[in-house]
């Protein structure tokens, strides 16, 4: 659904995006992770044709954004970190205004989306009286009109309270599940991305440092907590299996070593095993490891 081919963008002297190649299949919620200035917003800007790439090309539904922007964005919705509206106009008039650039949308369709984002009671009030959360909802409403196939979300939970974050998450999941929309979610909030996305890409200083499933990211390091009766005997067995003791009762296996081999060796050495608990790296650790690896 979305394809980036060797996309690069230089802003001033800084390489904001460096040779990024990425493919996002249809119907998926895909996470784009990276710290501030990593290139996430630049990538979204290039996808929307708001920035001109220094090199490479972006495609949406196989249509080049750079060569046929109007066709490529025909069924794309987007929201930004800080949604901007005409604060002297009502939410409704802001929607009508933006929609006049997207082709005809019926009043009923707009009302449905307004109801979906929960703004039906405040939509005719001026945007200047809206809270940040309400502006985010309005931003989501405009992104959903007319009904898109692809939604690009740049830090949609930014500035929301915990309730707002949960609500936004629910809406995104609903869009994906019930309407089959492809969602590209850019965020620096790791738990947010983990709860919503099965696949992620990590950007660091404009470079793509990882793309794949969370599980692939987590499997990169195999750590286990062992509860044993004799650590002296165990150390010998571990050396045979080339396993490293990295902390109190915590061992790390090499990629080629299977935990079953270690267990078998420990048993052969006469060690009683009370428990083997796989340890999962927390998200921050995973992310930082990937980012610092480059």
């Amino acid at each position, binding site marked *: 659904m979305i394809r980036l081919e060797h996309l690069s963008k230089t*802003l001033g002297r800084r390489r904001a995006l460096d040779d990024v190649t990425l493919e996002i299949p249809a119907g998926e919620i895909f996470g784009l992770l990276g710290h501030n200035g990593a290139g996430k*917003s*630049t990538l979204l*800007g290039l996808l*929307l*044709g*708001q*920035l*001109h790439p220094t090199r490479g090309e972006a495609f949406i539904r196989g249509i080049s954004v750079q060569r046929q*922007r*109007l*066709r490529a*964005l*025909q069924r*794309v*919705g*987007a929201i*930004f*970190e*800080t*949604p*901007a*509206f*005409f604060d*002297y*106009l009502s939410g409704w*008039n802001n929607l*009508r*205004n*933006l929609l*006049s*650039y*997207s*082709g005809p949308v019926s009043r009923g369709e707009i009302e449905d989306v307004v109801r979906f984002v929960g703004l039906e009671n405040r939509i005719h009030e001026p945007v200047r009286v809206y809270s940040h959360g309400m502006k985010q909802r309005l*931003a989501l409403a*405009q*992104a959903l009109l007319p009904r898109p196939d692809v939604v690009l979300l740049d830090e949609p939970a930014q500035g929301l309270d915990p309730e707002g974050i949960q609500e936004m998450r629910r809406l995104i999941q609903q869009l994906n599940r019930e309407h089959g929309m492809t969602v590209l979610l850019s965020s620096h909030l790791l738990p947010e991305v983990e709860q919503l996305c099965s696949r992620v890409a990590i950007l660091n200083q404009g470079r793509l440092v990882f793309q794949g499933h969370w599980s692939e990211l987590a499997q990169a390091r195999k750590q286990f907590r062992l509860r044993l009766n004799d650590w002296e005997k165990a150390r010998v067995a571990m050396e045979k299996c080339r396993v490293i003791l990295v902390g109190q009762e915590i061992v790390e296996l090499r990629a080629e070593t299977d935990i079953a081999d270690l267990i078998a060796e420990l048993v052969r050495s006469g060690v009683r095993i009370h428990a083997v608990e796989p340890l999962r790296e927390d998200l921050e650790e995973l992310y930082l490891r990937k980012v610092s690896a480059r």
Partner: protein
Amino acid sequence: MNALALQLWNELYKLFARKRTYIGFGAVVVVECVILWVMSRPQSVAQFRQLVAQHGLSFKRYYSGLTLGLEMVMWTGLILGALFLALVSGDVMSKEVEDGTLRMLLCRPVSRTRIVALKYTTCVIYTFALIFFLGATALGAGMLYCGTGGLLVSSPTEELFAVHEARAGLARYCVGMSFLALSLTSISSLGFMFSCLKIKPAAATISTLSIVFVDSTFRRVPFFGSLLPLFLSTHLAAWQQLFAVTIPWTRCCQDYSYLLSVDAVCFLFALLVFRRRDFKA
């Protein structure tokens, strides 16, 4: 309503729903009231009486709403027009870029050329609206103060003196307002061009005003006398020639060709810059 008309309607709605858009209209009324008050003072009336007498004309016939209305327009047109047209046209694109609303718009399947064309058209419509308002209120105020009558036009800077009967004068007045608006569109075009550059809205407005005021000032310096045809303000005053007894059409055509060329260059430059620009938060 087709898409283009709807988009233009929405652009106008956005512009006219904003309170600051009306500052220009408010200022026009205030300045007109002040000018009317000044012109109704005995010294001003005496001066006018003297001018009319010099040409062997009847004071009663030409001290009319039309004459006062045109005087008010001549006093306020260029200065207030330049100020408020620069303010609005300098804002039209750069304010949206600054506020981030343009990025929301650029998520939509709309071409940059269309955005530039729509916003420029909005500026032109605002220019005509402001000038027609200026013309109508000036005429209304003049009529209320001293009723109907002939039109006397006196503009020493343009070496113009003419009189017209009431009906012909009114026709000239209406046509004159349209041509004043067309002239001042060049100021809006300048403001719009600056607004499309990567600068703050205030900088766009100040740049436009600087050009207009520097141009008007230098035009009055005798040293630049031989360069008069190159000054924008020389051509901006062309609308006054429509009040001459015999309209100098050749000069008018030359002046308006110059002004329309300025408009075209400003628009094309704005379009070129806008199409190449990157928009980022």
